[in-house]
């Protein structure tokens, strides 16, 4: 989230799309209701299903799953055509005036720079036009230049007329126009609107571009950085934000530093490749905060390797594993299944051992059968959890999932009882980036141990083996710091201190005055150094545990601005800032666009209000509002994504129709398909029904089907089917129906409803159905159910490699 949950109460319009907060984030949704009650705010819901969020919406519009870009581009077009956008904001805070280089073009569904052989774009084709001498970007403050990003955007979305939106999305024109009118009512200084989304956007082969389109719309409307505005990802799990922040995914180290690649053979090369260059251009130069990259990276290495990290040995950079290519979710199981992988032109083994903590790959999917068969090839599997999850017992999965007989599975499986949330302290980072400390209430039951103790015991045992026996590059194992008072059961407060960072040697300011003694906790990331004098486990979290104590444990309830920022409650990264890009909440002179809802304001000497997202004493005009972008402004045109600088509508990998905009390029040209015998993809002639998956209020992922009080509320798997389709298929409410995709087939209770309707797409009748994903073969036998991801494909977004769970093709029939 750029903003936060409570901040939604400041909005005049809340657009919910690609999310269903009333069902999946009920306590966060209260602030939408609050805005409705106190500001008479309008809730606009665009969703394939009439959800519980839609049930309290002011405006609801149906949409075919996976076509959100067409809808959003339609909104952008509407805003630009009607002038209902915040022109002054666009001029000063976005790349609207920036002029794009001559190589950029878009034709027949393809952007320039496409390499059909590799199915990749050469992104240099999308560069801004730079001054040949100074390399500075060129801009046209009038935004009339035909090659400025605003004009190019206008041209790009020209095709997305309300009629085209109806043709692609199935949203009746009048309903689309109603949405457009309400949403664009915030395209000015007086009003502000927010967009909240979730996995309904991320889990598509065009997921990132959906979010990009939403961000573009919000920038045009002048809603980014303002209280009540923003582009707000409602994240799914309690610490999914923290997991992403702390190197949970293969391509990141902590704090979104890049995992080094094979060709970046030493630290200098790595830092040169990863640190963006500041290109000074009008209207404002940028802070380019990422220019501090070396400080973040060296401090991280210093934390990871402690005393072993020296300037001479590149702070231990060589011990970090380097990647060649993609090691993300789908590749893990693809390589595991095939037993090998192609890396840097050679062949390497695939995973032979897998450790998973608090995670259920068999349930999570996609393409369950492939995952179960991949796990069957492992030599060993370690599952740490509270419950017996499907992954731990994959070797006795029901036969319909197509796994081998257990006697044929050579995997040694360890099931380790771990702790629940109440049985350990530690912090979770919520969707609003708040690190909130929790306290331990009781011990884990039986022989169960805290996750950190289990992990520490395994680590220490491995380290002992390397100490005694040596082996492959023992330094990599032995040099990792593990300096806890109790190494077997690390104190999580000590770990949070490491994450915050400390002075390794005395830290002096530019006048030579000592500001931190060696060993003292740092105040924040602005104190980090690239000379080994500071260590820091995650630069964006720095400030969470200072000499003042554990700031994540703060419980001050004050709200001095009345805008729901609560600066003394826990700690919000970065720097306890509650609204990202808040410099954009004020105009060129530093005056809030709306004085009743100021983000920050310039008082002549300082920025006051929220923690400013700019140097606190830098006068208006010194720096652009988007300090993390080298161009210093919000991007209407995004040259860094893998699938194009503007969002374009493409059909899902399993396409329900031929793309009406460019039939030759129906699906995204850069999405990857896998090629094992388990990777089959359906076509619309065999599988004519569009299907999507989702979650329910009453259930949490694959976890709560172990809790019978919640099973009571949602006792089992069901399939939601539009009334008219059910009638055609002879399916009655409460009877059983079967859904089949190219990968599998599952059966469940039919829920026949008018909340899903037939859609008319490109003149043809298109049906869509859906089902929730919470069940599996473990848990109470009365509440087991099919694994929804048996049906979902190994398809993914080309930027995030997140699987396309939300749109695929199926066949529906009455179950016999």
């Amino acid at each position, binding site marked *: 989230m750029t903003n936060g949950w409570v901040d939604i109460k400041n909005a005049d319009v809340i657009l919910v799309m690609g999310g269903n907060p009333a069902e999946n984030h*009920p306590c966060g949704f*209260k602030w939408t209701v609050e805005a409705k009650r106190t500001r*008479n705010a309008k809730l606009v819901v665009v969703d394939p299903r*009439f959800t*519980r969020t839609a049930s309290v919406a002011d405006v609801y519009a149906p949409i075919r799953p996976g076509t959100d870009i067409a809808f959003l581009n339609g909104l952008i077009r509407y805003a630009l055509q009607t002038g209902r956008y915040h022109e002054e904001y666009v001029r000063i805070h976005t790349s609207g005036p920036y002029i794009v280089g001559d190589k950029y073009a878009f034709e027949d569904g393809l952007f320039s720079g496409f390499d059909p052989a590799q199915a990749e774009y050469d992104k240099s084709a999308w560069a801004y036009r730079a001054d040949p001498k100074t390399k500075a970007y060129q801009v046209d403050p009038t935004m009339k230049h035909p090659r400025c990003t605003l004009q190019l955007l206008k041209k790009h979305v020209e095709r997305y007329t309300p009629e085209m939106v109806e043709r692609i999305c199935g949203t009746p024109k009048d309903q689309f126009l109603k949405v457009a009118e309400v949403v664009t009512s915030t395209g000015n200084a007086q009003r502000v609107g927010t967009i909240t989304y979730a996995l309904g956007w991320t889990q598509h082969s065009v997921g990132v571009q959906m979010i990009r389109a939403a961000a573009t719309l919000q920038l045009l409307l002048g809603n980014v950085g303002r209280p009540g505005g923003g582009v707000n990802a409602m994240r799914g799990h309690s610490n999914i934000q923290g997991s992403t922040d702390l190197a949970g995914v293969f391509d990141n180290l902590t704090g979104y530093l890049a995992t080094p690649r094979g060709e970046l053979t030493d630290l200098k090369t790595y830092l040169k490749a990863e640190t963006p260059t500041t290109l000074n251009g009008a209207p404002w130069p940028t802070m380019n905060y990422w220019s501090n990259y070396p400080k973040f990276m060296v401090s991280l290495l210093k934390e990871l390797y402690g005393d072993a990290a020296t300037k001479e040995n590149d702070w231990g950079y060589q011990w970090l594993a380097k990647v060649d290519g993609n090691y993300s979710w789908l590749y893990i199981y693809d390589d595991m299944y095939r037993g090998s992988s192609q890396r840097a032109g050679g062949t390497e083994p695939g995973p032979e051992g897998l450790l998973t903590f608090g995670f259920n790959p068999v349930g999570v999917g996609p393409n369950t059968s492939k995952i179960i068969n991949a796990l069957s090839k492992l030599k060993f599997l370690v599952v740490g959890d509270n419950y017996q999850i499907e992954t731990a017992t994959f070797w006795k999965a029901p036969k319909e999932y197509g796994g081998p007989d257990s006697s044929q599975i050579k995997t040694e499986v360890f099931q380790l009882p771990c702790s629940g949330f109440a049985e350990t302290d530690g912090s979770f980072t919520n969707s609003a980036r708040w690190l909130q400390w929790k306290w331990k209430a009781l011990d884990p039951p039986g022989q169960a141990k805290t996750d950190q103790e289990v992990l520490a015991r395994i680590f220490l045992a491995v380290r002992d083996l390397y100490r005694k026996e040596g082996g492959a590059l023992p330094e990599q194992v032995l040099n990792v710091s593990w300096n806890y008072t109790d190494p077997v059961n690390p104190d999580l407060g000590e770990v949070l201190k490491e994450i915050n960072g400390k002075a390794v040697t005395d830290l002096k300011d530019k006048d030579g005055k000592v500001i931190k003694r060696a060993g003292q906790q740092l105040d924040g990331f602005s104190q980090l150094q690239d000379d080994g004098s500071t260590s820091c486990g995650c630069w964006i979290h720095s400030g969470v545990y200072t000499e003042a104590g554990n700031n994540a444990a703060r419980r001050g309830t004050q709200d001095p601005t009345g805008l729901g920022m609560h600066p003394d409650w826990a700690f919000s990264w970065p720097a306890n800032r509650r609204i990202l890009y808040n410099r954009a909440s004020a105009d060129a002179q530093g005056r809030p666009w709306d004085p009743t809802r100021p983000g920050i304001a310039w008082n002549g000497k300082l920025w006051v209000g929220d923690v400013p997202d700019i140097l606190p004493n830098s006068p208006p005009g010194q720096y652009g509002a988007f300090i993390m972008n080298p161009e210093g402004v919000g991007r209407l045109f995004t040259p860094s994504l893998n699938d194009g600088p503007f969002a374009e509508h493409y059909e899902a990998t399993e396409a329900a129709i031929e793309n009406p905009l460019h039939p030759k390029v129906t699906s995204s040209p850069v999405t990857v398909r896998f090629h094992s015998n388990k990777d089959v993809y359906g076509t619309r002639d065999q599988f004519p029904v569009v299907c999507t998956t989702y979650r329910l209020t*009453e259930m949490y992922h694959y976890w709560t089907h172990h809790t019978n009080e919640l099973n*009571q509320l949602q006792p*089992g798997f069901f399939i939601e089917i539009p009334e008219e389709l059910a009638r055609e298929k002879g399916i009655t409410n409460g009877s059983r129906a079967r859904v089949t995709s190219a990968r599998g087939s599952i059966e469940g209770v039919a829920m026949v*409803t008018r*909340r899903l309707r037939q859609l008319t797409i490109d003149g043809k009748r298109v049906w869509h159905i859906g089902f929730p994903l919470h069940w599996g073969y473990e848990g109470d036998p009365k509440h087991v159910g099919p694994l929804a991801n048996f049906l979902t494909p190994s398809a993914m977004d080309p930027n995030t490699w997140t699987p396309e769970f939300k749109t695929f093709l199926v066949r529906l029939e009455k179950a016999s």
Partner: protein
Amino acid sequence: MTADGLEIRQSSASVWGSATELRNLKVVSKLIDTTTCIGCKACEVACQEWNDLHIVPTTQTGTYQTMPSLDANYWNLIKFREVEESGFFAWLLRKDGCMHCADPGCLKACPAPGAIVQYQNGIVDVNPEACIGCKMCETGCPFDIPRYSAKTDKMAKCTLCVDRVQVGLEPACVKACPTGCLEFGDKAELVAVAKARVEQLKQNGFTQAALYDPPGVGGTTVITVLAHGDHPEWYGLPKDPQVPVAVSLWKNVARPLAALAIAGSFFAMVAHYLSFGPKTPKEGAEKPKGDKPA
């Protein structure tokens, strides 16, 4: 904290009134704003958890609704209804549960002394110690709320978490409610809140929005905001609920007579009459059973 409870306004099977009126206590209220209910069921299970009720076995039958109707172990139930009329479609969600009527039919119908009491703060409570499991309260309730438990041979229903209210806390359902569609407080204040909400709804195009606080039962402690106030039946609410005439008859006429009677056989006769008399039809109470939850 057992005995010095809340002041009693009236009690079942009591002849000459039972109000102590020792203390001046305000009437509490629970406001249900159906226009902001998201059907999340937090109220359902927060109630069940606080009151340590047993799990009710359920199966998926093609609805989001947890179970067909209330249960002795389930005192709050959100009713899910799809309503469609001439191009207008709504998914109406309303928490069903005891309304804590000012003029409680259950209390009037109850023959067991002290089994149903109304506190001075408006809460109507079943005292399991005194309940004899005769189900008479069912017949008196125009909202189809009290449920019989064969396991305990007692009736059960929402107590408005009287144990929490007594120590100054809100009921568990209200505390949990994520959107604040449930509110708890002084009735006069909540009626004002509800009326303001109704006005807002009217301005937003729901011209028939209304507050449901039916006079036929003397008003209710639980009051409900409806966007479609002209169609309470869309929400499973009776249009004009009344305490069944026969029950009033029993309470106000027959029972004082009974008090004078000596023979137990008279009670049997009255009981028989009650069992068959008031049960069908329930005047003014369109029983919501049989309509299709969705």
